[in-house]
């Protein structure tokens, strides 16, 4: 049986490869998955590039940055499958939560932004800028956080400081006072809450609803050499995704993901993320935030080229490099809707007719063209109501604050 070693970090959104393995969806497709756990994205990437693993659970911007050669010589990666949308949160230290007057529900991003701006300015004046932890320079966390901060008039580099804390250390960094807030995936926000060291202020779905999060990344060479096997892997992941959103499966899935070899966290904590029920502060009853994590419906696993384009736009914005049409094309081509379609033709998967869309343009449910199944997209709004046209990135960048 052909084997895929798949690198991952201990996060709830590593669910699909883990569950495809545990529930036998991989075996049903004639492949074996061997999950390989690490602590940092740098190690996950090194193992992928040097053949310790065949594929990886990866933050989407890192796959693009690696292909473009940001921070290291370029190495072409391909993303034929999205492992999930959203699912991260911004958690404030108790002191920052107090200073911003966080209530018992999730804040409105614009209102909270206005209050945070005052606190941030006071801290600039005091010579101690607020410090935010994100999981990686090339992470959706970094880009969503920066998008929000810049959108509410807080300069992500001038007015606050953004540092890197790997997910398993984010709650510790908050506890130790190394950072005033973290933007990280689950279960690490909830762990910070349960330890009483943080309060969840926002979820990233409030910043960009349906924003692309983790992806399945492979070396492009692997995709070329093992096309049929990769197709089988995508079918197994799709089956796992379909199963993951069954309400009856949630408890068992949480129990699996909680195991020490995966997330190593309490079952109940993992369950809150899966069930879209987040406890915002220690001891409070969880609130329901629909679609906090989004793993399957609305063709969530489809690698839209426009989502890669948005990430590239943010990359030029925050790396302060000029927009390049050639780079934009390379970045978008990391996402491989063609591979997704070929692998899932004839399955239960919904296959969109287009490979790119206007991001942030859907407010009410919208039916769109599909070559297989029916596709109705829900709201994909950015908190500031802007839309992103992948065909005109320079105009988009020019209009941003």
């Amino acid at each position: 049986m052909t084997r895929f070693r798949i690198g991952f970090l201990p996060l709830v959104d590593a669910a699909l490869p883990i569950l495809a393995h545990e529930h036998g969806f991989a075996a049903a497709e004639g492949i074996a998955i061997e999950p390989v756990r690490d602590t940092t994205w740098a190690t996950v990437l090194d193992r992928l590039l040097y053949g310790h693993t065949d594929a990886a659970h990866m933050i989407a911007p890192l796959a693009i940055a690696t292909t473009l050669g940001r921070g290291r010589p370029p190495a072409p990666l391909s993303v034929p499958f999205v492992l999930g949308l959203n699912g991260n949160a911004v958690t404030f230290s108790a002191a920052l939560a107090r200073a911003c007057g966080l209530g018992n529900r999730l804040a409105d991003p614009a209102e909270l932004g206005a209050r945070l701006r005052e606190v941030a300015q006071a801290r600039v004046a005091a010579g101690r800028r607020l410090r935010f932890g994100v999981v990686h320079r090339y992470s959706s966390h970094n880009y969503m956080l920066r998008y929000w901060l810049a959108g509410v008039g807080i300069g992500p580099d001038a007015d606050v400081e953004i540092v890197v804390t790997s997910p398993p250390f984010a709650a510790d960094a908050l506890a130790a006072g190394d950072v005033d807030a973290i933007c990280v995936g689950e279960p690490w926000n909830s762990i910070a809450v349960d330890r009483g060291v943080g309060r969840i202020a926002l979820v990233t779905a409030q910043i960009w609803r349906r924003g692309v999060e983790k992806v399945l990344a492979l070396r492009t060479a692997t995709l070329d050499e093992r096309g049929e096997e990769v197709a089988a892997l995508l079918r197994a992941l799709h089956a796992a995704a379909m199963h993951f959103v069954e309400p009856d499966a949630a408890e068992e899935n949480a129990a699996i993901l909680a195991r020490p070899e995966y997330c190593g966290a309490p079952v109940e904590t993992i369950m809150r993320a899966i069930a879209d029920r987040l406890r915002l502060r220690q001891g409070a009853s969880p609130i329901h935030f629909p679609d906090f994590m989004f793993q399957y419906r609305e063709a969530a696993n489809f690698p839209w080229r426009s989502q890669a384009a948005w990430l590239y736009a943010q990359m030029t914005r925050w790396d302060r490099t000029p927009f390049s049409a050639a780079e934009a094309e390379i970045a978008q081509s990391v996402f491989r809707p063609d591979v997704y379609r070929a692998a899932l033709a004839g399955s239960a998967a919904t296959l969109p007719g287009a490979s790119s869309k206007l991001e942030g343009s859907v407010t009410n449910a919208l039916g769109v063209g599909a070559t297989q199944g029916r596709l109705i997209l829900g709201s994909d709004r950015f908190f500031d109501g802007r839309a992103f046209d992948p065909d005109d990135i320079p105009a988009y960048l020019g209009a941003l604050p």
Partner: protein
Amino acid sequence: MRIAIIDTSSSRAAIIVDGLREAGLTDVVPIDPASALLAQLERAHPEVVLVNLENPGRDLLEDYFAMSRALARPIAMFVDQSDEAATAAAVDAGVSAYIVDGLTKQRIKPVIDLAVRRFQAFARLQEELREARSALADRTAVDKAKAILMKRRGLDEPAAYALLRSHAMSSNRRIAEVAEAIVTSNALLGDLP
């Protein structure tokens, strides 16, 4: 050439520092991974940074190096297109490296090769140590199980051992496993008649 070593295993770090010094590379700065990593690096101003692959601080380090591109002495990933094989060997051995841009390959290669050899030697030592430890634990368990059998069944030592051995063979288990089971059940049930 100043080399900084960041390793979660302080004994491996020491072995690498020794190796580099023996090879005449005396300007070596070990970094304490438990305290402020970046401040130490800033002070050390290294041209080469060796770090264990699984070091939990790597994302932080890479961010720092990316920022350092704006400084006078940018640090690049050691991963160099021209020497894929050496990089792969390093990753296989569990070592990663970051190097100031512009250092020539001829100067770096001996450092990396040496680190790789030391990492491999360290891994072998660890494995031998683990084997020795488990052999010792096995022997202790067997000795204890023999004593229990001798006492409870009135056997002499060769007979107790023979009983252990024959049971292990018939149940297709290691003698140490059978011994462990006897020790455990004796601890739980030993007082029962």
